[in-house]
């Protein structure tokens, strides 16, 4: 009945968890997450939800079976730890910041990449701009990872924030280049045809500003399929909603906003979704 052999190891890519550990546990129980199965996340493990600390500990304790790409909220947490950035309104990171194992968890998170790959799939937090090919996304994710992992990471986290540059240019260097990569891989939603990003719109496509389209509405230069998160208002994206040359699955279905937590099983391209378990703050 299922295309998945019973003994095979499955890879589940789950949407933005954002501290919703109870929902993650419910989803894993519902899919029958096996002792050898792999859990990947599109990023934003933390913030806005109730249990960022528990989520990071749970993910870390899965060891080699877990991997995530880093999202903007993950970077925000790291920027508070390493770059002296303040808590912002709406953040729910206090317990994590006060935890005895905060530095250990931050170190573990800082070791996660910005791009996960299988033979057929790429996983990124926000997306891959149509102006990048496979070699470009690999090289740029690696550049950013080097900055985040390396000895100079405090300087990166201090200067990480900013909407500029909003357009890719191969000639970019230094912090401007790193910020451009960060903005593309972890914050991008809408672009114009020249590749200029628009950061203010987080809502539905029907209300997108004129001249801008989601990154997946442009023809992709990638050979494989992409899984991404970061855009809860879309309540998931399937390949039939993308440009015919782009095969992307969006798996953020707004768990932290009281909607659902969703995972895509890469092996047979099958979606699993459970309602959010967290009680919404009034």
């Amino acid at each position, binding site marked *: *009945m*299922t295309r998945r052999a*019973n003994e095979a190891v499955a890879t589940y890519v789950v949407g933005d968890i954002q501290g919703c550990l109870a929902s993650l*546990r*419910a*989803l894993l*129980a*519902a*899919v*029958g*997450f*096996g002792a050898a199965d792999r859990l990947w996340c599109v990023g934003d493990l933390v913030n806005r939800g109730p249990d960022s600390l528990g989520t990071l500990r749970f993910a870390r304790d899965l060891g080699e079976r877990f991997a995530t790409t880093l999202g903007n909220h993950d970077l925000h947490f790291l920027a508070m730890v390493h770059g002296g950035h303040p808590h912002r309104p709406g953040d729910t990171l206090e317990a994590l910041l006060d935890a005895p194992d905060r530095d250990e968890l931050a170190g573990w998170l800082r070791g996660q990449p910005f791009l996960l790959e299988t033979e057929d799939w790429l996983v990124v937090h926000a997306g891959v701009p149509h102006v990048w090919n496979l070699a470009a996304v690999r090289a740029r994710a690696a550049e950013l990872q080097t900055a985040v992992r390396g000895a100079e990471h405090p300087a990166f986290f201090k200067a990480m924030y900013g909407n500029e540059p909003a357009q890719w240019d191969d000639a970019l260097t230094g912090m401007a280049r790193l910020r451009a990569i960060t903005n593309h891989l972890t914050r991008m939603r809408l672009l114009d045809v020249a590749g200029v990003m628009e950061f203010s719109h987080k*809502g*539905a*496509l*029907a*209300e997108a500003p004129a001249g801008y389209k989601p990154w997946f509405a442009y023809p992709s230069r990638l050979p494989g399929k992409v899984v991404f998160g970061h855009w809860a*208002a*879309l*309540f*998931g*994206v*399937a*390949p*039939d*909603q993308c440009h015919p040359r782009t095969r992307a699955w969006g798996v953020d*279905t707004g768990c932290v906003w009281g*909607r*659902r937590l*969703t995972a895509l099983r890469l092996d047979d*391209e*099958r*979606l*699993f*979704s*459970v*309602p959010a378990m967290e009680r919404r703050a009034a």
Partner: protein
Amino acid sequence: MNASTPPARRPSGKTYLVGGAVRDGLLGLPVRERDWVVVGATAAEMLAHGYKQVGRDFPVFLDPRSGEQHALARTERKTGPGHADFTCHAAPSVTLEEDLLRRDLTINAMAKDGDRLIDPHGGKADLDARLLRHVSPAFAEDPLRVFRVARFAAQLPSFRIADETLALMASMRPELAALSGERVWAELAKAAAGPAPARFFETASALNGAVWFEQLNLDATVALFRRRAFRNQATALVAIGWANQRDAIASTLSRLKAPRLTARAATALAGHGPALVEAETAPALLEALAAIGVFRPGPLPELVFAAVEDCAGESLQPLRDLAQALRRIRVDATPGPAYGVALRDARLARIASWQKAHR
């Protein structure tokens, strides 16, 4: 919740936790309700201890303290073609093992005595192997079990239906027509709330529509449920209309005795859903909006909007706003046919300007 606390006062005989609570506990799933089997007691004893009998024909009781279901251990034998045609034999002499033998799947035929698992039919091994397997050939005596298995496939998506069980289900086809539509609908409704509703339709498809679903385009239905998440059970059920022809969905849901609102919304979705997303002319969009009940009171239009959003993966908020604006339009004309024409013209004009801005 302590899964092994029996009620404070109980009749003679021994009480075991059975069925879904045992299964879900082992799977780490939330346990919603607990069912118990009482071995070695009589109905009179149960009543004397304050238990309330649930049905006339089955020795099933509610514990007035916990509200949980307690059934006397029983065996069943089929006497007719339907789901309800059984003679039921309950006696203090019926053993737990005999009671477990009449159940559908091995993973549902386990019991717990405190922390001790009682598993005479290999349920734990099938649970670990992620296998939906029938307990015995008596599975075929209840045709509803075909749809129960399809529902379990949606609720437990890591489980595979055993080949021999699927073959047995296929052989039960002649019995399926005698089922009541409501019972089949209830299984579909539970599947729609599960983590992978597509698997209900995949199972039906593997059984050539399993009689009740053979008018549907099951390939299209499966494809829709495999690529979209649905915000809730209601939109998932209505969404079936998105993948099917109007007449097919209307007749299928009518035979299933689906709730009226769900059936109307699913049928409206089949007939007018695509037009809501992509109608190019004002009259076409007005017709679709009227057909989904935008100009009448009631929950139908919002249910259709929500289901279309989940199916198409697109927000219909601008269309909701348009519908609201259209409802508020009043025209200055004398009552009668002229009023209707003037109202329609005013609505069409409003839609045309909206379409210019949004499409």
